[in-house]
């Protein structure tokens, strides 16, 4: 008789002690391990304990949540979302604090250019009177008393330029930044989070973020904005409608 576990021996083992088989199992038989591995159950608990060896903090990747929400809402229209996002535009800005765990209900979302991991994504939030941050949608009306802060997901590390465009005017550079690959809040050197005050603004305002792997000129960035991206240069945009 084969020394290995099979369905019949497994069932019998649970009812009757079999020292020979237990000894065989304890020896680390690969065939028996394979049988045990094929039994459903306990997988999730094993993974739970294994992952507890190096616990991880909760995610602050609001962009990932926004992507998830978008996918849930329009699962069959991803390509359309891409096209619409590319055609949309607008705004941003501001300056306040982006806390790691804003206690707000998020919904949709804003600036996206490209798709998947190759996309540069730009998202904004407004800071409320009590300091809470509320993510905003692309095209959303925002009070001129508000200030915007930004979260970005970049497909690469490299230099970036941030522009603001009032209405259909020419985009004006706000600042230069350095991005890391992945999700991050936009910061201005050691001064903390980069914010853009909407005070004095009216109507549609767009914010453009242009990123590349190597330094680029303002002209190159503006060309990329016109073209919706260029070789080695990625662009993200979001818009707000500033109200008095």
């Amino acid at each position: 008789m084969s020394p290995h576990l099979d369905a019949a021996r497994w069932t019998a083992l649970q009812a009757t002690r079999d020292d020979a088989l237990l000894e065989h199992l304890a020896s680390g038989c690969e065939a028996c391990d394979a049988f045990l591995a094929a039994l459903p159950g306990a997988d999730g608990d094993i993974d739970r304990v294994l992952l507890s060896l190096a616990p991880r903090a909760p995610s602050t990747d609001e962009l990932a949540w926004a992507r998830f929400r978008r996918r849930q809402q329009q699962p069959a229209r991803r390509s359309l979302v891409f096209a619409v996002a590319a055609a949309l535009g607008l705004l941003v800005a501001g300056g306040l604090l982006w806390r790691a765990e804003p206690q707000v209900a998020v919904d949709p979302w804003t600036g996206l250019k490209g798709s998947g991991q190759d996309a540069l994504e730009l998202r904004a939030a407004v800071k409320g009177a009590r300091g809470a941050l509320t993510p905003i949608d692309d095209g959303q009306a925002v009070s001129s008393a508000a200030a915007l802060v930004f979260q970005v997901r970049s497909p690469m590390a490299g230099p970036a330029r941030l522009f603001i465009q009032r209405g259909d005017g020419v985009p004006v550079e706000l600042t230069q930044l350095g991005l890391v690959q992945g999700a991050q809040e936009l910061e201005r050197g050691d001064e903390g989070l980069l914010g853009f005050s909407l005070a004095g603004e009216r109507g549609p305002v767009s914010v453009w973020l242009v990123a590349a792997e190597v330094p680029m000129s303002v002209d190159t960035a503006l060309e990329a904005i016109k073209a919706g991206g260029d070789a080695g240069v990625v662009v993200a945009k979001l818009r707000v409608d500033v109200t008095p």
Partner: protein
Amino acid sequence: MAGAAFSESLTVTDREELVRLLDGVKRGDQAACRQVYLTWRPGVLRLLEGFAQLDADEREDLVQEVFTRAFRAVGNLKSPEAFDGWLLSIARNRGLSALARKASRHEVRERYAQEQDDAAELIPESARLELDISMVRRLIESLPEGPEKETVRLFYVEGELSAREIAERMGVGKSAVTMRLERFRARIRRQLMLDVLKRRWEP
């Protein structure tokens, strides 16, 4: 069991809070969904990083698929305390199914392609109670020095590198790292079974 979660987030160690969140998810409350997603996303992503054959795009897609399935099926969850393990079992099944789709040359057992989210539990519930982090640490310590132990240490204990990065660092194929991790999980499962069976027959 909620207190032994795989993420330190699990600030959701409070059962009432966990119940509240999961009830919110069932109702489609987006604030609850968001909190659950952000809390458990790191662990799900980490699990998927153990499949070296999957690239970052594929893992990201799978994370979304896992939460889509989980949010849809959370009403079937037997108890809130089982949420961690249940979610991770969905993630593992999705990962293995993706491997099966991706390359038939991988040694992916037939069970991996099966839908197991609601599978009958053939391993007794009592086994789960035996499973704890100290047992896993002992098993790691007992491994002979060598590539498997180093792989397990890098992936599970240090917890920084993905399986793909470990393969590059160790100069081995991606599938080799995945199989080492799977082999270690098989050891845990075996030890779990032995502990349960021996205890059953103790006077």
